[in-house]
């Protein structure tokens, strides 16, 4: 029912359905409509124009009524196309079921035969069959059906293989039922929907193909005529009397087009990816729709974010992925941003350079400044100049983030050459030097490798080399070590640490791992449900977390030599950010919740170099700052 409604929501599909319905209805009603006999010739009355007396669509080269011939021809074409589809579906499904059910040698023989049939361009096979059987509508029908058998056989075999190993089939086999019984009672009912769908998608084709054979003179023979042979006969008088060609031609077009429209509608309705709108292309830069004035930065740094807000607009829902986040990082400093997945930390990172996929992402407020330049709302050209040149990214999972079809050396060369007009050879040397710098052995030969030829750790080093290509001021690393094993992770972290000290890089390090933060970061910001809930120097936060969430998050990290401490998972899940309640988002999972926690907004309370968003902090920051 839902599917039917979806089809109707698609106006084009509905139009297709209506047009097709009218054509089919006319074809069914043809015998009882008050029409002239389609085969009675009257050569004195040849080639009458449209609206001629007694002939609504005029007459053809033998003076036969075109409207009558059109409707009878449509009836025949639809019937033959439908019959060919049924024929192909039954035989093809038969082969498919037998092949899929029995498997083994039977499967092998049948499928190799099917492959052979598919090795032919379809019309050659159809022509060979018509050549053997002789021209005629029924033989054309057989030819078209046979040509389409492989399509059904393959589809149905795939479905049958899936079903043949289900429990209920095994049960039937153990119950001693014969193969025939099992196929008929267990398999067939489950594949019939697939057969029907496959039929509906090919029926337009079948109509077109049989019409084609008739057009060639190999299908229906005079005086009987389907749409194809009407067109074929009219071809002789195409130049002098185009009407007789246009009438059947337009009818074929109308039929096939309405079937295609309907088929597209059905496919869209059945494909859940299209339903959720996931198949949309992200734009070159995130859409900015900022209503409020640009806030002034409240902190110093090479990169400052102030009250940044990024949302996802999906249908009528608004997900507040980043909710007034302010962060800053100074040259040579490493800022950790930590949180569970879904906390908005990655979206925060991607918002900086407008890399949040859009649609559905929209930056709705706040400011991001690189030195003195405002990035939110900057032109695409300006963003592009800074991307990879001054502010570079390192992403998680380098197998997905490196282009699979380019050599890593070429990907590095490109990173350099989009910002610096230097000769290719020079850029290649620089690429090799970069690979060497991130301690890849044999950089000269490794530059020639494709990403899939490297290990995960090596690929991540390539990702880092790419970020370093233009000697940027800021590197934003989005969980760069998550996909790696622990030893490789440690190597990568020390590599980043060295680079930061050598080059005075500012690093924003996104992670969900406090262990990593402790190793690398000077300061840390904790995110929960799109907000910063705590911020401060790493050591201070680790030693005396102020927010209950931070404390629980630290308790999740196992410590070497800490003995048999119980690792505490945090019960419950982070809230969905499309319907946040007022007050503290962590309240439902917090052990210290009181009524006041969920009545009003809770501000980020600043004390010295630390801040916390909690009414009942674990550590009194004011007193700590005073001491």
């Amino acid at each position, binding site marked *: 029912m839902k599917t039917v409604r979806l089809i109707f929501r698609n106006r084009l599909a509905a139009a297709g359905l209506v047009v097709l319905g009218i054509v089919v209805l006319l074809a069914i009603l043809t015998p009882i409509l008050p029409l002239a006999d389609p085969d009675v010739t009257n050569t004195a009355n040849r080639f009458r124009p449209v609206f001629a007396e007694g002939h609504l669509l005029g007459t053809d080269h033998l003076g036969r009524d075109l409207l009558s011939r059109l409707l009878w021809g449509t009836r025949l074409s639809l019937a033959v196309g439908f019959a060919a589809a049924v024929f192909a579906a039954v035989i093809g499904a038969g082969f498919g079921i037998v092949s899929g059910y029995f498997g083994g040698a039977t499967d092998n023989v049948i499928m190799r035969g099917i492959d052979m049939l598919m090795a032919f361009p379809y019309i050659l096979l159809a022509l060979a069959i018509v050549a053997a059987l002789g021209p005629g509508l029924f033989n054309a029908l057989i030819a078209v059906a046979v040509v389409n058998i492989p399509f059904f056989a393959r589809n149905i075999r795939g479905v049958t293989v899936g079903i043949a190993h289900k429990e209920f089939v095994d049960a039937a086999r153990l119950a001693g039922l014969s193969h025939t019984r099992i196929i008929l009672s267990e398999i067939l009912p489950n594949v019939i929907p697939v057969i029907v769908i496959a039929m509906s998608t090919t029926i337009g084709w079948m109509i077109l193909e049989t019409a084609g054979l008739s057009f060639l*003179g190999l299908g229906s023979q005079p005086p009987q005529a389907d749409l194809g042979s009407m067109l074929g006969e009219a071809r002789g008088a195409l130049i002098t009397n185009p009407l007789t060609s246009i009438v059947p031609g337009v009818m074929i077009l109308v039929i096939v087009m309405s079937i295609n429209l309907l088929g597209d509608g059905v496919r869209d309705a059945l494909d859940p990816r299209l339903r959720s709108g996931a198949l949309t292309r992200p734009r070159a830069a995130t859409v900015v729709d900022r209503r409020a004035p640009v806030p002034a930065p409240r902190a110093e740094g090479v990169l400052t974010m102030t009250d940044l807000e990024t949302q996802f607009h999906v249908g009528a829902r608004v997900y507040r992925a980043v909710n007034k986040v302010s962060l800053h990082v100074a040259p040579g400093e490493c800022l950790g941003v930590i949180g569970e997945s879904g906390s908005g930390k990655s979206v925060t990172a991607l918002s900086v350079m407008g*890399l949040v996929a859009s649609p559905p992402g929209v930056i709705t407020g706040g400011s991001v400044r690189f030195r003195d330049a405002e990035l939110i709302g900057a032109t695409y050209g300006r963003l592009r100049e800074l991307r990879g040149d001054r502010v570079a990214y390192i992403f998680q999972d380098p197998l997905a983030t490196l282009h699979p079809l380019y050599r890593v050396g070429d990907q590095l060369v490109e990173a350099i050459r989009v910002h610096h007009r230097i000769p290719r050879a020079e850029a290649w040397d620089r690429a090799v030097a970069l690979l060497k710098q991130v301690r890849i052995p044999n950089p000269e030969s490794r530059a020639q490798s494709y990403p899939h030829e490297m290990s995960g750790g090596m690929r991540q080093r390539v990702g880092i080399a790419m970020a370093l290509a233009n000697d940027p001021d800021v590197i934003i690393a989005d969980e760069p070590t998550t996909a790696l094993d622990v030893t490789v992770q440690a190597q990568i972290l020390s590599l980043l640490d060295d680079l930061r000290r050598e080059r005075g890089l500012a690093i924003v390090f996104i992670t969900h791992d406090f262990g990593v933060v402790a190793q690398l970061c000077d300061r840390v910001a904790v995110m929960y449900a799109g907000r910063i809930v705590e911020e401060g120097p790493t050591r201070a936060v680790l030693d005396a977390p102020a927010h209950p969430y931070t404390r629980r998050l630290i308790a999740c990290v196992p410590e070497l030599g800490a003995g048999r401490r119980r690792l505490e998972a945090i019960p419950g899940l982070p809230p969905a950010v499309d319907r946040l309640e007022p007050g503290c988002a962590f309240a439902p999972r917090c052990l210290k919740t009181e009524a006041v926690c969920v009545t009003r907004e809770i501000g980020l309370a600043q004390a010295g170099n630390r801040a916390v968003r909690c009414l009942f902090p674990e550590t009194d920051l004011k007193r700590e700052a005073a001491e």
Partner: protein
Amino acid sequence: MGSYIVKRLLSAIPVLLGITVIVFLIMAMIPGDPATAILGSYATPENVAKLNRDLGLDEPLVARYFIWLGNMLQGDFGRSFSLNRPVLDEVTERFMATLILAGTSFVLCALFGIMAGVVSAARQYGWADRGITFAVLLGISIPSFFLGMMMILIFAVHLRWFPVSGMYAIYGGGDLADLLHHLVMPAVALSVVATGVVARLARSAMLEVLRQDFIRTARAKGVGEGRVVWRHALKAAMVSIIPVLGIQAGFVLSGAVYIEMVFQWPGVGRMLVDAILKRDILLVQGGVVIVAACYVLFNIAVDVAQSLLDPRIKT
């Protein structure tokens, strides 16, 4: 790479043999006595017996297949009785004309299909996308033979831009310019459906690729949007577009039969239809086997192209 090509060629041998078996079996289905069918029902018994002997039809089925196969391997496809010339010569000559037509159409459908698909995906839901989507729907719904006839009516009869039919002008002509002038309309008419199919697939392949992480990486590097779409995304999308191009080559070759009829193009498709109507079985047999074999080889070339594009394919 060389060994991969050899491997693919070797794997084509059973397919080629299978094709000959299928064609042979279909032709063996001919009801009644082929010799009588050829000579007509008034032929004398002696003549029928002689023709049967000439065609090797007095042997058992399996023997006949191997004789036929052996002859073909030596380049002997028999003699067309309706044209009274060797089948191989006739098919080769006609196939060249078809290759000119179908090859041009294939290039057109690949070029314009991919371009339309990329533009459509890059401007998703914009006016260009809507326009292309509608044109594509129209293109894949119109029967190529009807489209060809309408093109003749408009561009040859009314506007007189192109000749109505044929491959060369009857008087004068015969040079490349003349050929191209005759080629435009049939090649375009033949390419429309395939262009539509390729455009559709290219659009969805591009939409799929443009959401991938490596596209975000390219953007994060500062690569311009034109280069992101036409280099990074298209190259990755080609991995799924190329196999469809291989399939479309088969459809273009098939559609050529109709277009050759409409435009009186002296290709192998029209030859086959004429041969069927004249019951010239040897000509049909030879034509089908030769064209199908070329198609199999073309598909190997497609596989090789795919392996050149995608280093992840084990060669």
